[in-house]
């Protein structure tokens, strides 16, 4: 799985959680809660879905890496030992 494939799959995964009118504004520097208006209660669901989708485990401390879209993609790649 390449980084591009991870990026595509992750953006697909978070799509149903995003509450902005225009999804085209999403970029790797977007913050899930502040910029993309994701309900903060659902943050944990994104973590669980990410674990399932990419067959990785994410501990509580690592959840901080999911605030920003690009950081989350990098984190997933690291966990899967993919070149960024």
């Amino acid at each position, binding site marked *: 799985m390449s980084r591009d494939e991870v990026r595509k799959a992750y953006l697909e995964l978070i799509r*149903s959680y995003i509450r902005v009118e225009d999804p085209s504004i999403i970029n790797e520097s977007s913050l899930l809660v502040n910029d993309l208006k994701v309900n903060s209660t659902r943050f*944990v*669901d994104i973590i669980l879905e990410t674990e399932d989708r990419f067959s990785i485990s994410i501990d509580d401390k690592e959840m901080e890496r999911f605030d920003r879209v690009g950081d989350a993609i990098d984190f997933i790649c690291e966990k899967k030992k993919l070149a960024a």
Partner: protein
Amino acid sequence: MNRVVVTGMGIVAPNAVGVEAYRRALCEGKSGISYTSQMKELGFGCHVAGVPDISKQTANGYFSPELLKNSNASMKYAVIASVDCWKDSGLPSRHPDSGVDWRTAAIIGTSLGGIDTIGESVVPETNAGRARRLGSSAAEKAMSSCASACVGGLLGLGGQVTTNSSACSTGTEAIVGGFWMIREGRSDRVLAGSAEAPSVYTWAFLDSLRVMTRSSNEQPQAASRPLSASAGGFVPAGGAGILMLESLTSAKERGAKIYGEVLGGHSNCGGQRNGGSITASNPEGIQRCVQETLEVTKTKPSEIDYVNGHLTGTGGDAKEIRCLTAALGRRLSDMPWVNATKSLIGHGLGASGSMESVAVLLQMAHGFLHPSLNCEDFHPEIEELRPRVPEKSIPWNSRFALKTSFGFGDVNSCVIFKRWEE
């Protein structure tokens, strides 16, 4: 003291979804009871139930994908009934960016709230050591107040938003509670009613108690038999009924249509004494509840011209009728009209009182009484009541209708509705 009227209704019942469909189903005596294979597969004695038919298409009309994903059955029923009730009352649509409506409250009761979520997800995941896998929605779906919290958020309500729970008297108790909130000026409007999931995790312990019927599994539509000599237990059901209770002043200010007036109600407990227990009613408790309701509403017993009974299809039916004759000071042959909505929709437990109150108001507003099904072999102890129980739909312009509900814990709730007259 404010007068309280009903300006909107919403219903999710086993025999119809939506007020107009429910009116037709009541008028036609349509049964909503069907065979449920899951109950047989799980080894239940009862294999029949009343389960509302909510298609995916219907649900999509009320829920965002996110809300739908994070809702269980009682939340879905409550949302559909509440949104329909809101629209029916003629209030402006609500959106996520609408402000908070500080003058509207909600009392949406339930017996077991999110028990389907608890049974299907919280318990198995926890026991398997996977609590962290429950996700965010487990909390909002498992809590007893899941339905009222969901409706409160969807409609942006700013009055008290709460859930009452008093077993099978819950729905009527919610209406009594809402009545007093408006009567005392604490709210202009209250969405009052209840919702119950059709969950095998609820029905399991009732089946174990042998209070659900076991004798009509081959004939589902004959299974719910209130007032019948052959009644062998109730038919479990799910659903939701919601009333928009509103101060008459508020209703008139905005020119709202009015289904009927809530004259008032009362709730009490028989103390589990003198024949009362956790599962049975103290007859004096029932009689006092009816009499207090008459007193608080300043209604004479002779003015009651229709009773929508609790009448579940168990051995308690004859006892209930004897309590009513005593409380109203009337002979069996001189009783008001009596019918049992549970003969059509089964026993919605916490949702029963509100689904049946919607039935009362529809009958009152449209001048008819629905048939009480499956009592052709009338209970011999109350045989003289038979002429007062409609076998088929009849025209009747009720002016004062009494709704009674009783529940485990020996708790009782009664309310009197009056046909709307200026």
